């Protein structure tokens, strides 16, 4: 069997399939179905300095081949994460990525400083949450703002730092370059695309927050395009996500330029997706006589 392990910014992953932030909480629920080590890593629910109650419901709407969400960063706060969730997660034999969110530059610096003194393996900076007025999305919308927040956080960050990029920008490659220039160790993309649905009978938005973040199979081609563009623009590792549903999608995303992958919405359709996708990756690599999954990355022939 081929080797599925990957190395992202010095961190060893047993396989390239990482659970995407916000879709798996802190792992307890899907951990009822299988050992969490089926994932190469887990990116935990976006965590803020203080507990956040999240947005009023409804928070979810279905879309053709996808969904919208506006959960609004409901989370128990960083102290709870560090004291309660992290010790358990560290025993699950998977890479633990803390996802840090905030409203101000000071918030981000403070939470990254706190997380740097813990056992988390990596920190993913969430500067692209579209569902909270002060949810950090304003930091992710231009190359200049991404460079500024990344530089600021870098001073406090003693862990490998992943910057999670928003697709709601005009030039994703320029944004990724800014993150790299300012000291990011890796980038992950794409976060959700901003969307909206309306109930035609009541004429009200289905989601109480009016707009939400769109994910699922429908966004996959957008994600492939952006990962392809970013991989050509930066030298740091690229974690590809957005609508990956099948092992074939996983292979395609790596060929486009991903060094590792995240899966999210597919867990809601098929909780066993990580098992299915890693098995499919093994099958593909064996069939094509490849020894390591890393041989796939950025091999698209244009």
């Amino acid at each position: 069997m081929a080797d599925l392990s990957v190395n992202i910014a010095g961190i060893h992953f047993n396989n390239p399939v990482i659970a995407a932030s916000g879709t798996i909480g802190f792992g307890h629920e899907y951990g009822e179905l299988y050992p969490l080590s089926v994932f190469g890593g887990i990116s935990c629910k976006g965590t803020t300095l203080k507990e956040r109650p999240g947005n009023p419901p409804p928070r979810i709407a279905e879309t053709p081949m996808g969904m919208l969400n506006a959960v609004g960063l409901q989370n128990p706060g960083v102290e709870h994460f560090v004291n309660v969730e992290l010790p358990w997660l560290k025993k699950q034999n998977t890479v633990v990525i803390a996802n840090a969110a905030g409203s101000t530059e000071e918030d981000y610096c403070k939470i990254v400083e706190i997380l740097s003194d813990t056992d988390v393996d990596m920190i993913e900076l969430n500067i692209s949450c579209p569902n909270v007025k002060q949810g950090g999305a304003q930091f992710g919308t231009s190359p200049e703002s991404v460079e500024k927040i990344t530089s600021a956080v870098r001073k406090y960050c003693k862990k490998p730092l992943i910057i999670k990029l928003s697709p709601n920008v005009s030039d994703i490659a320029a944004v990724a370059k800014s993150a790299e220039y300012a000291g990011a160790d890796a980038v992950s993309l794409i976060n959700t695309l901003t969307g909206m649905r309306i109930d035609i009978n009541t004429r009200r938005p289905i989601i109480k927050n009016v707009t939400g973040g769109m994910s699922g199979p429908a966004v996959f081609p957008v994600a492939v395009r952006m990962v392809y563009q970013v991989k050509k623009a930066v030298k740091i590792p690229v974690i590809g996500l957005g609508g990956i549903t099948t092992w074939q999608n996983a292979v395609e995303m790596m060929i486009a330029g991903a060094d590792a992958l995240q899966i999210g919405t597919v867990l809601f359709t098929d909780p066993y997706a990580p098992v299915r996708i890693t098995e499919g990756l093994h099958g593909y690599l064996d069939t094509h006589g490849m020894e390591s999954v890393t041989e796939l990355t950025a091999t698209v022939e244009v």
Partner: protein
Amino acid sequence: MKFDAQDCILNAKYQLTPTIFDFRLRNPELAAVTKPGQFVHVLVPGKTLRRPISVCDVDGDDIRIVFEIRGEGTKILSECKVGDKINIIAPLGKGFEIPKDKKIIFIGGGIGVPPMLYCAAAAGNNAIVINGFRDKSAVILTEDFKNTSCRLIETTDNGSYGIHGFVTAPLEEVIDEADMVCACGPAPMLRNIAKIAKSHNKECYVSLEQRMACGVGACLGCAVGIKREDGSMTYKHVCKDGPVFNAEEVEW
């Protein structure tokens, strides 16, 4: 096992009204651990999100669900054929606690009626059931309830069948015979039931609905406002903390 995602065989299928279907999903392992008031999360071919549907009953190896066509997903589901494989995550959520020594009023409104059947069967002759429907054409499961040991009261909004009016009128009449009230149905109905139960000093539990994604408590999508003891408000989740909540805690 707390819950699992597994295939079931659609073992039997009945149409109860032009829009309501009765499915028997065969899966001995999941049926054996499914309790009253819990739900199953049904994969609909071609859809990203599953459909949460309450358990109507468990009959041997079959989980019985009775659902209404509400949109595209439930329409596709209604077109499944006997013998088809249907994938469900089950059993999910915290259902109704049914103490053996208490007299319990179970109230169902419309498509909130089906989950009350498994509850009533579990409570035996301690159950008083009040089922409310829009009109005669929407009445379902009468014979099934009669086959339990419950006392059955049925109402229709327009009086075309049973008692004329909402479930709340007969509730006022029988509530002092009971120790607690359990209800499932439209939110305005549940709110009124909760008010009546409170004024009679009876425990009241309600089964709530919300647009849902994961179904297991991971994504925090299906939020419901809940009052904390100190009076502040928080969000809990229908899929994992519910669908059954103490009515006193619900922020209506």
